[in-house]
């Protein structure tokens, strides 16, 4: 009996002491402890629970699937290299030396911001500790009613006199702060979630939105610049009028130059519209302090039935909005991926190796509530999502989701409707045609061009007022919410 008591005491101390103490451990753990001190202390990224990939000892963070990032980089590099090799010499000769200088500066800007967008923490919220999760559960149960219906997992707060609903995240075990959304591709809650962009292979959120915006704006400038230079090059060559007498070698050289120039022309022509459209759309979002997520859901432009909602986060001044989004203080990374694990965190990580198993281990809860929570987790989170989901064939999209230029999350529509708690629906905008599986630049860019037109329409209608296109998405979401509120478990996707 004494042995039992001793063991319990030691257990508590090992798990809950804030300061690392050399508490005596049972004999069996001695070997493990020696092993731990012998091998390097682990960093937090090694036990990170989201679906992210880390490189350079935690300095670089990416989504598990890099999406079409290699394609993005490849296209930019190809076009720029062709430009510098084939167009610049001619243009420097005929026009000015500034052209490669400007081109070079833009190119460097684009690549740096792309790399920063892809490899930085978008604003991931670390998951709740077990104690926190238990406390939140207790609060929910206290607030809930005593019937068999599960207690409501939403909280309402008043933000600048606007009612905002905070949803409970089953994966991260906490109430999501306002403007936070759970990205199921990365399996993380991301603050000020904008969308998951397959073109950069990462989520776009609070911390990397400014990088993303700078990337698309500078890419618009670069694409337009190269397009202009290429057109000028071809026009000048045509004007040159050297006549039809060429030496064979010169002819081949000119032919090659013209071919590469034509390739650049095609790439730029198709990209410039979609990228420009996307930049324009995001400029509108920045000026009104909105996220793509909120814009798609129509959160602040008046859902039918609710009174006119205004964006409570907007500063009511375009200039201030722009400054706060782009030039505001840089928030720190909350996941501290290069920090070292403390003793109790190591123990917790070792105790729960299957972080995505969705088993809710809550201390001291009535068994009925346990069952409710458990069933909720199973039905709403569907852990075994097929990995091929991003490449799933597009289901008939709502006009909403089609809105938008390149670079949105791929093919997520099929699973979206049945999972209101996850809030990843908005990230599906424009995704369906922009799946990474779409082969060929021309095809992708052609779609991008078509989508760009819808973007403009969408953006214009957003400026005017609630468009018909936007109504579709909330309605879809509401029906699943109604089903959920009615008490019946939502259908498994």
């Amino acid at each position: 009996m004494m042995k039992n008591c001793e063991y319990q005491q030691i257990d508590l101390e090992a798990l809950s002491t804030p300061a690392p103490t050399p508490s005596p451990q049972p004999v069996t753990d001695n070997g493990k402890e020696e092993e731990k001190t012998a091998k390097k202390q682990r960093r937090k990224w090694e036990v990170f629970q989201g679906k992210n990939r880390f490189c350079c000892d935690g300095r670089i963070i990416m989504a598990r699937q890099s999406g079409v990032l290699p394609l993005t980089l490849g296209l930019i590099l190809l076009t720029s290299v062709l430009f510098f090799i084939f167009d610049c010499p001619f243009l420097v000769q005929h026009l000015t030396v500034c052209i490669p200088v400007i081109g070079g500066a833009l190119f460097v800007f684009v690549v740096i911001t792309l790399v920063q967008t892809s490899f930085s923490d978008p604003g991931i919220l670390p998951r709740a500790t077990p104690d926190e999760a238990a406390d939140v559960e207790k609060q929910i149960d206290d607030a809930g009613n005593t019937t068999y219906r599960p207690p409501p997992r939403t909280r309402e707060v008043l933000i600048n006199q606007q009612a905002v609903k905070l949803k409970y995240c089953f994966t991260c075990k906490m109430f999501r702060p306002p403007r936070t959304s759970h990205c199921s591709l990365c399996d993380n809650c991301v603050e000020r979630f904008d969308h998951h962009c397959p073109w950069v292979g990462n989520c776009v959120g609070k911390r990397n939105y400014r990088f993303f915006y700078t990337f698309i704006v500078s890419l618009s400038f670069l694409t337009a610049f190269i397009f202009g230079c290429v057109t000028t090059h071809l026009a000048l060559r045509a004007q040159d009028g050297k006549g039809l007498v060429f030496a064979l070698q010169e002819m081949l050289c000119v032919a090659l130059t013209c071919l590469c120039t034509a390739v650049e022309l095609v790439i730029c022509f198709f990209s410039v519209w979609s990228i420009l459209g996307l930049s324009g759309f995001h400029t509108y979002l920045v000026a009104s302090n909105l996220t793509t997520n909120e814009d798609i859901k129509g959160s602040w432009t008046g859902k039918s039935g609710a009174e006119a909602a205004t964006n409570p986060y907007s500063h009511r001044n375009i200039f201030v909005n722009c400054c706060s989004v782009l030039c505001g203080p840089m928030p720190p990374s909350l996941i501290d991926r290069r920090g070292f694990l403390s003793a109790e965190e190591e123990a917790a990580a070792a105790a729960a190796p299957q972080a995505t198993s969705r088993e809710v281990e809550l201390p001291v809860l009535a068994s009925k509530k346990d069952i409710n929570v458990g069933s909720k987790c199973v039905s709403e989170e569907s852990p075994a999502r097929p990995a091929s989901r991003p490449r799933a064939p597009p289901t008939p999209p709502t006009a909403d989701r089609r809105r938008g230029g390149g670079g949105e999350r791929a093919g997520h529509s099929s699973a979206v409707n049945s999972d209101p708690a996850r809030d990843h629906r908005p990230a599906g905008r424009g995704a369906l045609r922009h799946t990474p599986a779409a082969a060929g630049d021309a095809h992708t860019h052609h779609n991008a061009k078509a989508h760009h037109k819808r973007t403009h329409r969408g953006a214009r209608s957003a400026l005017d007022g609630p468009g018909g296109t936007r109504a579709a998405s909330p309605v879809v979401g509401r029906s699943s919410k109604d089903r959920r509120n009615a008490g019946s478990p939502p259908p498994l996707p």
Partner: protein
Amino acid sequence: MAETHSLQDLGQQAAVAAKVFIQRDYTNGTVCQFQTKFPSELETRIDKTQFEETVRTLNNLYAEAEKLGGQSYLEGCLACLTAYTVFLCMETHYEKVLKKIAKYIQEQNDKIYAPRGLLLTDPIERGLRVIEVTLFEDRSLGR
């Protein structure tokens, strides 16, 4: 027993009785503010005004970190012009204030909370979601 206890001593001798979580206050938007409501579990341990003062100071410090003003705009514009590469070399204003906050919490723990068997955890270690107050067993009650 009345003298300041070091956290180390506390950790070695006391067991955790409970944990109280001070949640975020979103009435002003997404800025980092914590609720100043005094939790009932702490009533027997610490003075209400003392605790509220601590939380209010923390709120002010976070507001200072996230303030939109001349300095932050300057920093932001400079960063934008350099394609945000300055973030690799320079410590941002936010990080500087976070260090200040860590020092403040350490100081509060040493002077006020540890003697009462309490421990404040820096919110940054909890993803700026909560202020975790750990209540240690009150040895004065005898066990």
